[in-house]
């Protein structure tokens, strides 16, 4: 805390009073007892000098030194009780005496000042550590600002206000507003009595640290540099504390989000597990069927596969919906994609697919798993909506700096309700005789959107049937 000026001046008066009292007392004693001794008197007269200097500072000390010299001359040097000096040797004695008194005064004054400073520093650092402690336990922005305001007020004995913008502290259009804005922009201190904006009504101190601005207005002037330095440390600390709670809040939000994500993932994994386990038994059971018409069991197996795919599609759609399915994009050769997609089809469909891949087909950027599902669903769709033994053609070729995947069937083609074709659970009007829920095309649409691929459908230019096209842009610029 700033040592109270009034208390200090009272200290000074008391020191001076005592010093004068002792000096004149000693002078009186010297007059009454002439055999007190010159040397004794000289030493005793140094006491008030030291007293005045340590209690009242250097100037008082020097004054007392001269007064002590005069008293010494008046009482102890011949002719006594006059200020005259008879012997030239005594002149030297007096000179040396005054010099000693002056040195004593200045040493004591300096020691006293150092003591004051140390006391002040100790108070300051106690104040500062108490404040940082309070800041640590402050959990809201309001509390932090309150703690900082209290600390600045204690430290300066002036009123103080702290805010995050200059609008809250300085009236618009005033010199103060300009000072406040300057302080925020330069993360510095300015205002009343300071270079720049010395006409402002207050001192403005902006925090040097912190992600956001923090500004204090001190309603006073004439703060010593050391005080101002402490104020700046307080504001910086408050700005750091604000950052800290913001970071903590963000981490907590992230944690909550991650927890929710983990929970969702676990739920999807367990749904997937619960669906796949019975499918395993079902499929194995179908494979074990013997003594039946092989074409019949093959049909059953194809149904089981389709059921698997539908469940899988629904699960994938749900995951995409809640952002649990984020694309992981890498370089892909469409040859690989087509190969793996055909491999996932029922045997009866595999044989119908014909592949043509242009030699110049470039690599594309996509998520391999999502693209796999896109192509499998498009192939299944083609198989579903075309006669059982008709051909399905898959083409991959380069196009406009990217690549294009085309799937052609020999079915009835599409009607005009193309916009609806990709909608969840919608099917073309020919859908009545085809099995499935139409979930496949919804997955195609959703995944393509997530990946930035463009899927279009139209009737084949030649012959009947539908033509689905997936367009991939060229390689995105490397970041």
């Amino acid at each position, binding site marked *: 805390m700033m040592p109270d000026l009034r208390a200090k001046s009272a200290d000074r008066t008391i020191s001076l009073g005592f010093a004068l009292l002792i000096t004149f007392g000693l002078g009186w004693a010297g007059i009454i007892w002439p055999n007190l001794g010159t040397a004794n008197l000289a030493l005793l007269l140094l006491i008030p000098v030291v007293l005045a200097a340590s209690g009242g500072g250097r100037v008082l000390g020097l004054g007392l030194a001269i007064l002590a010299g005069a008293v010494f001359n008046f009482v102890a040097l011949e002719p006594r009780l006059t200020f005259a000096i008879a012997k030239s040797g005594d002149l030297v004695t007096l000179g040396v005496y005054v010099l000693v008194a002056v040195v004593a005064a200045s040493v004591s004054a300096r020691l006293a000042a150092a003591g004051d400073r140390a006391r002040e520093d100790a108070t300051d650092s106690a104040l500062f550590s108490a404040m940082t402690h309070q800041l640590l336990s402050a959990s809201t922005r309001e509390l932090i600002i309150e703690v900082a305001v209290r600390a600045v007020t204690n430290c300066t004995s002036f009123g103080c206000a702290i805010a995050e913008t200059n609008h809250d502290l300085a009236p618009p259009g005033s010199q103060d507003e300009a000072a406040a804005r300057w302080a925020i922009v330069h993360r510095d201190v300015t205002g009343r009595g300071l270079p720049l904006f010395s006409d402002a009504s207050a001192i403005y101190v902006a925090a040097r640290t912190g992600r956001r601005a923090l500004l204090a207005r001190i309603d006073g002037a004439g703060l010593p540099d050391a005080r101002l330095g402490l104020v700046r440390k307080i504001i910086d600390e408050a700005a750091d504390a604000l950052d800290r709670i913001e970071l903590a809040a963000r981490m907590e939000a992230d944690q909550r989000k991650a927890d929710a994500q983990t929970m969702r993932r676990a739920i999807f994994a367990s749904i997937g597990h619960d669906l796949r386990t019975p*499918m395993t038994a079902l499929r194995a059971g179908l494979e074990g069927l013997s003594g039946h018409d092989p074409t019949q069991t093959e049909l059953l197996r194809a149904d089981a596969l389709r059921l698997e795919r539908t469940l899988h599609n629904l699960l994938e759609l749900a995951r995409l919906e809640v952002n649990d399915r984020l694309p992981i994009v890498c370089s892909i050769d469409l040859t*690989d994609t087509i190969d793996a997609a055909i491999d996932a089809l029922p045997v009866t469909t595999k044989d119908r697919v014909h592949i043509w891949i242009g030699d110049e087909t470039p690599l594309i950027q996509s998520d391999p798993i999502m693209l796999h599902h896109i192509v499998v669903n498009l192939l299944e769709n083609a198989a579903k909506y075309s006669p059982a033994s008709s051909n399905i053609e898959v083409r991959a070729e380069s196009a406009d700096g990217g690549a294009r995947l085309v799937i052609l069937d020999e079915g009835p083609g599409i009607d005009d309700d193309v916009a609806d074709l990709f909608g969840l659970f919608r099917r073309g009007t020919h859908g009545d005789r085809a099995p499935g829920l139409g979930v496949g095309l919804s997955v195609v649409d959703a995944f393509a959107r997530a990946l930035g691929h463009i899927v279009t459908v139209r009737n084949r230019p030649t012959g009947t049937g539908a033509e689905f096209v997936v367009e991939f842009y060229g390689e995105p610029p490397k970041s």
Partner: protein
Amino acid sequence: MSAAILIVDDEAHILRLLRAVVERGGHHVVTATNGREALHLARTSSPPVALLDLGLPDRDGIELVKQFTDLGISVIVVSARDDISEKIAALDLGAADYVVKPFDTDELLARLRATLRSRTPQRRRVDVLQLGDVRLDLGARRIQRNQSEVHLAPKEYALLDLLARHAGRVLTHAQLLREVWGPAHEKDIEYLRVAVRAIRQKIEPVPSRPTFIRNEPGIGYRLMVPEAPAEGL
């Protein structure tokens, strides 16, 4: 037949089913329904191959992959978890293969045979692979197609050689890139795509419909070697 195949799955009817499938393939079988039992059997009956479900009641099956591999047991993960990162994790930890439920029983048996084959000690293993009309001589580092030499670039050869030495097993993108191009290029999948395409151009009968180097979407590649009909085990 040699030592029994270890099957680990906590669901009784799936365990029964797996046992039936593996026994149909001509193998003896020991079974476990949790991780503790599985580890005990792994130590006492030293199976060559374990079919391992990842969702075990007492621990995460992925921990067992490493422990089994350290014991010299080849692991085929048979899991209902269809999560790409989990597949890659299992394969990178040393699993020989990963089969997702529901599986094709013939496919599972084929994977089991391929895994058993790859356990043959190196010196007894044939250094020559016949892929259709392509003859791959790993010892002499020569590839012939219909008696004429096929020339591969050094990286292409290194890749084919690596796949051939693990024929039938899927190797992850990261494993392939690390071995052939070095650890610094572990994520440069493009290199791999380009090299695979080049190899296919040179050895596949129809490069657009590959039969030898097969893609596992998002995971890696596997070299498929046509099985000799006599090897019906």
